[in-house]
């Protein structure tokens, strides 16, 4: 009998361990979702108003960590998928506690999101219509695609690439890199006031841009192009100190 109980218990425990469910949390009352990670982060859209963190195959907890909680800089794992999720007022803070392994996160299309990679992680964001902030602080790259809203992004060594759908006109776009290339694609009819500047890189574009350097005015960062396209509109500022800049018609 005793043996039987033990077998049952073991069976039970193993099913619990295997049925590692995705983590979800409602987003009602949340204005911003801030994600911080050392590893790669991919953020995609889904249709429900909740945060969903996929528990990937790489999420296996080591055997001897059974019954223990993962603890990292951002806090303690309160999601069972290796993340710490904390609500601070109308902001939801999501820390990826693991130092390797991809994180796949789903959020509603209109969510405002801010993603920070603090080490080697690449940031990938696809399909959002809200505001997007992305910051790759060390070696990571930032790739933002199919977005409409204002994007504020910054990389140190990685490449920064953004592909816009229709660009909302209500708030400025700001894309900076120190050592990486900045590569932006816009619908060709996008109205915008452009400001492109680079110190040691070059600017390439198929938009009709006249680089007017004002006479006698030395520009701040060596090369500074200001121009309007399609009659002018939202402010779009692109800068790379040492990288090249690519502005493409989509």
């Amino acid at each position, binding site marked *: 009998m005793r043996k039987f109980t033990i077998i049952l218990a073991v069976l039970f425990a193993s099913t619990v361990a295997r049925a590692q469910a995705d983590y979800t949390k409602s987003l009602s009352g949340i*204005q*911003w979702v801030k994600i911080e990670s050392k590893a790669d982060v991919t953020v995609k859209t889904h249709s429900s108003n909740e945060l969903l963190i996929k528990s990937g195959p790489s999420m296996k907890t080591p055997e001897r960590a059974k019954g223990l909680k993962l603890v990292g800089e951002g806090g303690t794992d309160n999601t069972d998928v290796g993340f710490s999720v904390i609500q601070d007022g109308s*902001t939801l803070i999501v820390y990826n506690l693991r130092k390797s392994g991809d994180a796949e996160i789903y959020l509603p299309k209109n969510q*405002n999101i*801010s993603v920070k990679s603090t080490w080697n992680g690449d940031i990938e964001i696809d399909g959002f219509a809200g*505001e997007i*902030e992305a*910051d790759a602080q060390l070696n990571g790259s930032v790739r933002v695609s199919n977005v409409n809203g*204002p*994007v*504020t*992004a*910054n990389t*140190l060594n990685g490449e920064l690439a953004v592909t816009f759908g229709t660009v909302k*006109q*209500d*708030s*400025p*776009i*700001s*894309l*900076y*890199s*120190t*050592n990486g290339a900045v590569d932006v694609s816009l619908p060709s009819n996008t109205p915008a*006031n452009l400001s492109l500047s680079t*110190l*040691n890189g070059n600017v390439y574009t198929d938009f009709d841009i006249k680089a007017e350097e004002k006479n006698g005015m*030395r520009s*701040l*960062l060596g090369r500074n192009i200001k121009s309007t396209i399609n*009659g*002018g*509109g939202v*402010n779009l*500022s692109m*800068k790379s*100190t*040492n990288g090249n800049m690519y502005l493409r018609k989509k």
Partner: protein
Amino acid sequence: MENEHVLDLIPEYLDGSLDNETMKNIQRHLEKCPQCQQEVKEMEALLKAFKNDVVPVPSERLKSRFEEALEAEKAAMGKVVPLSSKTKKYDWASSVLKIAASIALLVASFQMGSVFQQKKIDQELAELKDENLNMKQTAMLSLMENQSASKRIQGVAYIDEFENPDEAIIQALANRLLNDENDNVRLTAFEALSKYTSSETVKHVLIQALEKEKNPSIQVAIIQTLVQIQEKKAAEPMKKLLENEDTQPFIKEQIKAVLPSLT
């Protein structure tokens, strides 16, 4: 009237929107007409319910969106000088004159009146302009505190609207440069401040920022500006950056190239 029912006038009576004489007449009638008195009481209850009704208030977003639309339209308008109102009035007046010369005198006196009116409006507009500047400053300062980095950048960019930004604005920009967590906001704030390097406050802030800043793009931009204005006090923080092993090599090269000109 005293003997006629006043039922149809009661709402206006309660609103107080009738002329004095009518009001008095109604009062006199009410004194001796219980039926109308009853009607007044009941209508008063209803109108009171309207007054006490809670009215929903739109969110702040509405205002900021409107202001953005307005700015966009202003930008689109460019520097087109608006048609002055005087020419319009002239056309109007001349066509009237064509129709009937006999009323020319009337028109003239009307125009005199409207000239005075115009003067009054212009004077009040001048006062309003001050108020507008205040509004802009408030908008700018509050945008700079927004949770969204894009909005903070927008707030910083408002600096272009001010010919002579006052201390509060400079201080707010300095705050962004020194303390904002977002690199893009800090760089935009730096660019805004770099237009006012003749100010001692700004010089001081730039030196502070150079000591503190970790983003190499912003570091190099600050260095260039401080060298351009030949700020000798910048030499110390630059030397420190040279000694610091976290400093990017290209920054060090830059410093090595410019440092002799400051010392």
